[in-house]
């Protein structure tokens, strides 16, 4: 009996203490919740409701009511029907292959070209000139994909473009129908991507190289190590963490294509789809142009889930390499 009363009294005491603490807490920290409210609302609208909404991939929507929300809620659950349909088409394999292979090529080029250029910048005797070239190289990064589409078009326009009118005749080659011949785009897209983005990656690699203590090189020079040897044995090992982290971060997004590159630069030409259609453009095309809600939402869901798994794995590896650089 005594024990029981004690048990009843104790929580009461704790509650009282909690309450006074609470008043002080809200007085001090309450304003924090107000400060976070706007971003929280945006995140809910922009991210969290669509996340829940992605279950639309498991529904069949019929347009009975004028309210979309009603149609959504009344939509029949169809399980994996949309996915069955998607993976029966040849598109599923094609868009997955294009997305992953292009991204893999881009990632490799970003590392190889990026590190090579950063090394060369670091070796240049005239530092001001190096700065100048770095600035120019950074320019394409600031251009929108629309502008890049214009620039590419100026070269590839079949009737008037530089390639067919000037450059190919120089080599005695015949004209190419660039916007209807898919085979060239496996080369064009990596070139355009490197051209636009390499300045961005060079920033990180150069910062890492400049951060290396000069004494290593002095000692190596005294020991008679050649420049190549120094790069191989000092520079590359010391910037290895940066290389690994930047690369793994890109690998984390390997299932997401750059919509602008694949949509604008190719001018979304249907005849090129064999080598240019990626998951992102497929979802856009299927949903907003063809109007196939089931198929495109299934493709989007497939991308979200696989993408999520890949980024988690990539991050786990980053954590093992360099804990400070892991995303979480």
């Amino acid at each position, binding site marked *: 009996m005594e024990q029981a009363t004690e048990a009843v009294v104790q929580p009461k005491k704790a509650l009282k203490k909690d309450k006074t603490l609470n008043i002080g807490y809200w007085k001090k920290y309450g304003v924090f919740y107000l*400060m976070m409210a706007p971003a929280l609302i945006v995140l809910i609208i922009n991210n969290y409701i669509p996340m829940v909404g992605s279950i639309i991939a498991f529904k069949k929507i019929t347009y009975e009511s004028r309210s979309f929300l009603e149609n959504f809620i009344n939509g029949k659950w169809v399980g994996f029907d949309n996915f069955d349909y998607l993976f029966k088409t040849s598109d599923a394999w094609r868009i997955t292959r294009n997305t992953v292979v292009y991204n893999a090529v881009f990632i490799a080029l970003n590392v190889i070209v990026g590190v090579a250029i950063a090394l060369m910048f670091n070796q240049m005797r005239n530092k001001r000139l190096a700065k100048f070239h770095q600035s120019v190289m950074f320019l394409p990064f600031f251009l929108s994909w629309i502008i890049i589409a214009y620039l590419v078009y100026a070269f590839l326009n079949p009737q008037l473009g530089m390639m067919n009118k000037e450059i190919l005749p120089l080599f005695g080659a015949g004209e190419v129908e660039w916007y209807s011949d898919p085979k060239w785009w496996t080369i064009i897209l990596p070139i355009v991507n490197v051209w636009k983005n390499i300045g961005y990656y060079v920033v990180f690699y150069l910062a890492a190289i400049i951060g290396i203590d000069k004494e290593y090189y002095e000692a190596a020079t005294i020991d008679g190590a050649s420049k190549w040897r120094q790069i191989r044995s000092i520079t590359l090992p010391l910037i290895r963490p940066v290389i690994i982290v930047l690369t793994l971060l890109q690998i984390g997004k390997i299932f997401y294509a750059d919509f602008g590159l694949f949509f604008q630069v190719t*001018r979304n030409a249907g005849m090129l789809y064999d080598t240019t259609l990626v998951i992102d453009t497929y979802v856009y095309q299927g949903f907003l142009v063809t109007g196939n809600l089931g198929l495109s939402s299934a493709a989007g869901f497939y991308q979200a889930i696989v993408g999520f798994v890949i980024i988690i794995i990539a991050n786990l590896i980053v954590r093992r390499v360099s804990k400070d650089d892991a995303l979480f």
Partner: protein
Amino acid sequence: MATIASKKKVDDALAISRSSNFAINIFFWIYSALCIIPILLLLGVSFSDEKQVLINGYKFWPEKFSVEAYNFLVKDWRPVVESYGYSIFVTVIGTIIAVAIMSMYAYPISRRDFKHRGIFSFIMFFTILFNGGLVPFYLMYSNILGMKDNLLVLMIPLFAQAFFILVIRTFFMNSIPTELLESAKIDGAGELRTFFGIVLPLSLPVLASVGLLTTLGYWNDWFLSLLFITDDGPHTIQFRMYEALLDIQYLSSNSTAYSEIIKANPGFSMPSETARMAMAIVGVGPIIFAYPFFQRYFIAGLTVGAVKG
């Protein structure tokens, strides 16, 4: 004097040979040219005579110099000027709101004494890892919120970007001394006063970097327009350029204006190829002029933004 001379000697010993240096220089001059030449090509075509272009193709140097294309844009100036207006509005207002919203979210989760910082960090962070995809995103804004053709839909999606919130939070945690916050508290300043009076003024570098990146994001955005803006909606400069590349008639404010031009000048034919390139030059202008100034801060921002979880 002696130390400077000897330092120079050491530098010289460390530097690469003159011939390799020469080769590297050549490489970079070529690469830099490749970065600029495509833009010069657009410029050349935009100042060319339309007929010559149609016969001989695009040329770096106009065979026959002409400002016809720009005349055409000036004559029907409304669409271009309007588009600039929309782009500037979205960029300026959007960036101000976005930086305000993101820094207000970043501050509480940067405070180690705030007991819910973990959960709110996670809510923000999870959006980097997972997203619902294009279909529900589109349906949310267009069908549930009914925001088609609304300038707000071009701004809201960039208001709370998790990556930038992370960058700002990291800066708050590493660069604002806790003692400063504590002494403000002792002086009787509330949390809001501390945030606006002490934290924000000390954080100008990171706010500038995030602001620049956001500005660039807004100015160069066309994807949101592609999704949510119909033919009658507000066209930003990027979206106008996109449509002009598809179909030159989009440069005209409307078909009646276009037919009036034709009526006024019987022999008039649209300088479509050159006008298109002139449009691109008009669109790219601000970036070309602004970028030499801000790319420095940009680089600083990128290297500072080493993010930690």
